[in-house]
């Protein structure tokens, strides 16, 4: 089954991390991504820019509204994701727990809608 691991983080805290500490996080993500690849389960994944760079689009009554900022104000924002293919929820949860983001933020594990 396919699952999306969505990495949520408090951006204010992420911004406040000193540069040298932030650099230490990178190898952890590189190693994690490598492990997902070696296990043959990685379908995709990326880090997202901060939500201050987000723009939202809505069409209401035929009018397009483009607004600055993310859709919802929340304490934690979506900062990146991995798309993986594993046998079941337990396996997805165990991969989510290894994600470096789990120790500072929250990983939401969502099954992908399957068309069958």
């Amino acid at each position, binding site marked *: *089954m396919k*699952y999306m691991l969505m990495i949520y983080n408090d951006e204010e805290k992420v911004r406040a991390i000193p540069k040298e500490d932030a650099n230490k996080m990178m190898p952890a993500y590189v190693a994690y991504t490598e492990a997902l690849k070696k296990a043959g389960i990685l379908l995709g994944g990326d880090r997202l820019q901060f939500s201050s760079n987000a723009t939202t689009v809505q069409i209401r009554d035929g009018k397009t509204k483009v607004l600055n900022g993310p859709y919802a104000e929340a304490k934690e924002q979506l900062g990146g994701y991995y798309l993986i293919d594993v*046998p*079941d*929820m*337990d396996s*997805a*949860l165990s991969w989510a727990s290894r994600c470096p983001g789990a120790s500072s933020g929250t990983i939401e594990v969502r*099954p992908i809608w399957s068309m069958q």
Partner: protein
Amino acid sequence: MTAGQDDRLGHAAAEAVARRSYGKLVAFLAARTRDVAAAEDALSDAFAAALADWPKQGIPRQPEAWLLAVARRKAVDAMRRRRTSDAAASELRMMAEEMESNLASEAEIPDERLALMFACAHPAIDPAIRAPLILQTVLGFDAATVASAFLVAPSTMGQRLVRAKQKIAQAGIPFRLPERADLPERLDAVLSAIYATFTEGWSDPAGTEARRRNLAEEGIWLGRLVASLLPGEPEALGLLALMLYAEARRQARRDAHGAYVPLGEQDTGRWDTDLIAEAEALLHAASAMGALGRYQLEAAIQSAHVVRRLTGRADWHAIARLYDALFSLTQSPVVAINRAVAIAETDGPAAGLEQLDMLSQDPRLVDYQPYWAARADLLAHTGANAEADRAYEVAIGLESDPAVRRFLEQRRTGIRGQ
């Protein structure tokens, strides 16, 4: 025994067998298809037929084969009508055909009920719905019955059950025993769902609501099932022991006039010695496995209480020590209250009160009846009658069981007379 009683017993026995066989088939189908709702659909007509038929005709020699044969006929009918074929229905047809080709194979339907319970109590499932889900899928209770047992509106309960089953089917929740590393925590979720089932039933001491009383029995039955399928897990044995100790005292909780009798004043002659003996043996076996846990400790506390039937007095020193251990494990304020009561027995009411005072800042205890009842009792024993009176008033106001309310009112009147 009257003929009517005989009938009711026959009915209950048939119903019990129907539920066990049904649960085994649902578990087997669901484990293969991951679709609990479809497995229930496939078998529901057969189950309803069994509940109607067996009490009158007697229990068939091979109940699972009987259910499968009926279910297969219904599934074939339904498939003709709808021209659909879902996975559960076709699995069911295969099973029925296998069974018919080899009538002796009934014993070979693998028992997947434990896997089903682990799926129902998976961490991805809302803890509040785990026990109801197990009752529905493993024992076949309808949503309305489960709702009334857990004091939830039937429509709300129905919705939550549907959603949980959808999640199991769609989110890929596995039907198998968890990995060794996850087993203790996952097993704990299964055990606490079973214990919740038992305590819901236990909370109807007058035995006026058949459904809730039944729930205590179903909890014990599920506890027996898990203990028999995981005989090497000490906490599974510990939970079963705990429930049996409690069940052994069911009759003694009320006197002949229906008045509440606290544990320390119960007539030990009304305790069920067979159940106590079984509980003691289980606890003994569990403790030999060398992995202490919450349920074993709680069962050991029960054991130290029921020793009163032999020695005339509960072993309060042991009880205090066991509550100490339980508190360091759970940090629960409820455990701390019980520990304070035990300390009052060993070191006097003032020492117990001192312990309770340390809890008085905990906001969770403001509306927790046992805290106020314990406080009132200890205050009365130290002669602080005015304070005891106020504590009794709070405890009475928080109690929902009329018999306990009357008991507390009597105690309150008692200190007023002094």
